[in-house]
């Protein structure tokens, strides 16, 4: 099973035991950290720009910081960089070592910093090449994909991520879009949970009100609330993926029917 991390309009394939542990920001500016089982970690930073930046100047500023930090720690650091098809690749070796790349993406007009850091001399070039080669900036292309830790959601239009909840065994993402509020989530231990309750009961814990309809994919719960001058619909789909032992759901409160969750949202 590929381990894809898709976030804020970009995606990257990761080695199997690498998992995202920390992220912040939005589509314009942000940060994500992905940790491996060992000491290696991948950091991705992105920032939107109006005037296209010079990657060499950006990297020179970063190297200056690295040198300043290492002289403070009284250690030496070696740096090198080289322009490739993907971007400006660099390598520094000091108390720790890292391989990275500065990518100026014209698709979304964002500057990306990808860096794999590890213990001294252990930043593997092969892993770095593999990860970097899989990096893709989708920009505003649709569907808008979000994928991490076994949850993979394809939204029909761009939405703004408002909140993410990463707990052991439970993951939730919450977005807002024009006239819609959306959420998607994944719960581990699906088999064990299904031993205690059925899928409809579990789906009802997400969407307590509405008509429950069982279908071949899973369960859909829908309700319509009419207020003066407007109608707000809510729809929730939930399914049990037995092979991956997980329960996934997507739920939305919307006025525009494009935001009614469809089964192909949950890949």
């Amino acid at each position, binding site marked *: 099973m590929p381990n894809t991390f898709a976030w804020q309009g970009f995606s990257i394939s990761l080695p199997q035991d690498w998992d995202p*542990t920390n992220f912040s920001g939005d589509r314009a500016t942000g940060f994500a950290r992905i940790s491996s089982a*060992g000491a290696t970690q991948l950091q991705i930073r992105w920032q939107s720009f109006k005037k296209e930046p010079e990657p060499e100047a950006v990297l020179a500023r970063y190297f200056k910081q690295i040198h300043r930090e290492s002289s403070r720690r009284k250690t030496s650091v070696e740096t090198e960089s080289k322009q490739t098809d993907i971007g400006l690749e660099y390598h520094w070796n000091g108390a720790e070592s890292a391989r990275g790349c500065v990518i100026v993406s014209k698709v979304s007009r964002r500057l990306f910093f990808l860096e794999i850091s590890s213990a001294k001399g252990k930043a593997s070039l092969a892993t770095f090449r593999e990860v970097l080669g899989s990096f893709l900036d989708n920009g505003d292309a649709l569907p808008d994909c979000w994928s991490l830790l076994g949850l993979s959601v394809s939204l029909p239009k761009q939405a703004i991520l408002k909140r993410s909840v990463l707990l*052991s065994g439970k993951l939730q993402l919450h977005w807002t879009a024009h006239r819609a509020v959306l959420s998607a989530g994944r719960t581990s*231990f699906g*088999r*064990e949970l299904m031993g205690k309750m059925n899928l409809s009961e579990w789906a009802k814990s997400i969407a307590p009100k509405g008509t429950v309809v069982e279908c071949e994919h899973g369960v859909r719960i829908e309700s319509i609330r009419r207020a003066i001058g407007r109608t707000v619909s809510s729809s929730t789909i939930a399914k049990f993926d037995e092979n991956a*032992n997980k329960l996934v759901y997507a739920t939305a409160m919307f006025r525009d029917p494009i935001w009614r969750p469809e089964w192909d949202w949950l890949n």
Partner: protein
Amino acid sequence: MGLAQLISRFRLNPPALALHQLQVSRNQVVEELVKDDGIVVLSCPVAVQSGAFGKLARKMGREDRKEYELEPIGAFVWNRISGKVSATSLVSALQREFKLSRIEAETSLAAFLQMLASRGLISLKVKKK
């Protein structure tokens, strides 16, 4: 008591407990009883109380034991702790059996092992390099 109670309670962060250096072994004085529904009941002697209540308990011949119930997921981990096992092998077993991601398995297991250790049911030892 068990992993199920720990699910959804811990933020996914690499655990502070260095799992790759950890060896886990059962406390030899712990007795176990396996129920039909997969629940394991562990019984462990509590520390002898001092003072009047301790004296009274000893006089009455009351065995001071405390019982803990492990639900099936917790029991799954407990059953794999035989002799000395590495925490990494427990992480792999959890990942395989419950299809968890590495970070999820590590976070839950670290919390669970700390809970078992704090109740004196297991001992945790840091492996020498």
